[in-house]
């Protein structure tokens, strides 16, 4: 009788995915029946070559090339796949884990380098914002009123009875210290080094 022998490490990728801090303890990837509900409701799949069902198949088949697949960057993180999966799997979460693997390998850094300004503003103010890299495009798309809004935001907030949105200095120092000790500061440096 012909038998197929599974290699010891034939589930390496799926095990790595499940070990990731992002992976929910009840993530049902082994229960995936490849029904394709995820792909049928996916906005990324409707507009691009991204195919969450196939991404999950490749993870289960230990196909590490999925990490380098450009198409994984077309997920919208809308979790519609998660909400509709009959097997309790979460393709959106797995997509985020694969992207982090791509970033850790180095290739994925090019995909996120333009968002690095978000990290700078976070450490400076304790709050995030639209990365200034994209600000000019937004002003062009939305119109000059958008620039006026940004220039007048503190006055508008005051008219609405709201205080400054920027954290007090001591709080910013705490946030910065946490991000230093968590490794985020170094991560951001590593990402920014990749700037062309």
């Amino acid at each position, binding site marked *: 009788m012909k038998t197929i022998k599974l290699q010891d490490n034939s589930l390496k990728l799926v095990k790595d995915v499940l070990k990731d801090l992002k992976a929910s303890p009840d993530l049902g990837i082994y229960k995936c029946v490849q029904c394709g509900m995820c792909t049928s409701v996916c906005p990324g799949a409707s507009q691009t070559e991204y195919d969450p069902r196939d991404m999950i198949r490749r993870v289960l088949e230990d196909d590490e090339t999925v990490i380098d697949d450009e198409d994984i960057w077309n*997920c*919208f993180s809308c979790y519609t796949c998660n909400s509709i999966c009959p097997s309790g799997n979460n393709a959106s979460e797995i997509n985020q884990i694969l992207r982090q693997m791509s970033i850790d390998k180095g290739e994925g850094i090019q995909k996120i380098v333009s968002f690095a300004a978000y990290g700078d503003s976070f450490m400076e103010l304790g709050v*995030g914002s639209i990365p200034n890299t994209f600000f000019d495009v937004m002003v062009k798309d939305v*119109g000059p009123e958008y620039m006026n809004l940004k220039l007048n935001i503190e006055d508008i907030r005051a008219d609405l009875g709201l205080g400054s949105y920027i954290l007090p200095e001591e709080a910013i120092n705490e946030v910065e210290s946490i991000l230093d000790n*968590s490794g985020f500061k170094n991560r951001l440096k590593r990402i920014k080094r990749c700037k062309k």
Partner: protein
Amino acid sequence: MKFIPDKDILLFKSCLVNVEYPGIESSTSYIFDRIDVEYYIDERQSCCTGLGHYYDLFDQLSTTALAARNFQIAAETGHKNIAVMCATCYAILKKSAKILNQNEEARNKVNKILDDSNLEKMEYNTNDMDPVKNIFHVAEIFFNKRDKISSLVKVDLSGFRVATHHACHYCKVHYNDTIEGVRDPNLIDSLAAAVGVETIGWYDHKRVTCGAGFRQRFTNKEVSLAITAEKLQVLKENEVEILLHMCPNCQMQFDRYQPYIEKKLETEFNIFHLNISQFIALALGADPYKVLGIQTHTVPIEPLLKRLKQQFNIEDQKENVKVEKSLKN
């Protein structure tokens, strides 16, 4: 149905509410003050990292460590129930609380980070924050008090054709905790009903994403806006005049980009975009400029106000012109 609190609430500041639609925060406060919700805002609270998290820029450990700090601020001030105005804050905070409660290794790492940052006092203990019993969207707090809201309505908004856009990160991430429907979401429809407005209910594309997709709006703009345009088209076919939101990022995608999409497609949608808190505040008689903050909107809300046969007194209108002018300059 889960228990929803009306006191000991930390109103959690959101980065996009802060600088895009601050009127969502003033409207929320306006409503909370009138429906006997006891809440507090803390200037030390940091952003949840949501945008950075979904840009894949932040790592999960850093996001979780910052959440632990914010949870500690909530507990220390006696406001351990968190109410968010942004759906992504909701998803991020719930996920962080789950990790901190369930994953001992991660909890120890976070506590080590806090210790190393001289924040020993902020160390997290298992179940300090319950992701189901302590973390809510403000729309849920409103829902729990909808009878009180109904009793306070002053402005009749029933003449408008209204639809709702339920934020993905409220409905679809931690879907077991979502109230009023996941695949057929009706939370904001119920709130509109509380102020006397019957929405159109279900429509094709009701549960579809706004299209922002975090990185997609910036690195894949045509694809991102194609999703938004599809939804706008369906809303137009349904003759919708107001789309109600519960997330500032969705609101941005529709409000900031609707005129851009209209130009590209050579069509007109003429749909007003309001957050549910702005809509309820309007129904309760709040000032459009001093509470709703409509001066930060891209699609002007003035035509909607004009159509309301209600009175915004002449003083206010003068004030409004001033604000409008200062924005145009």
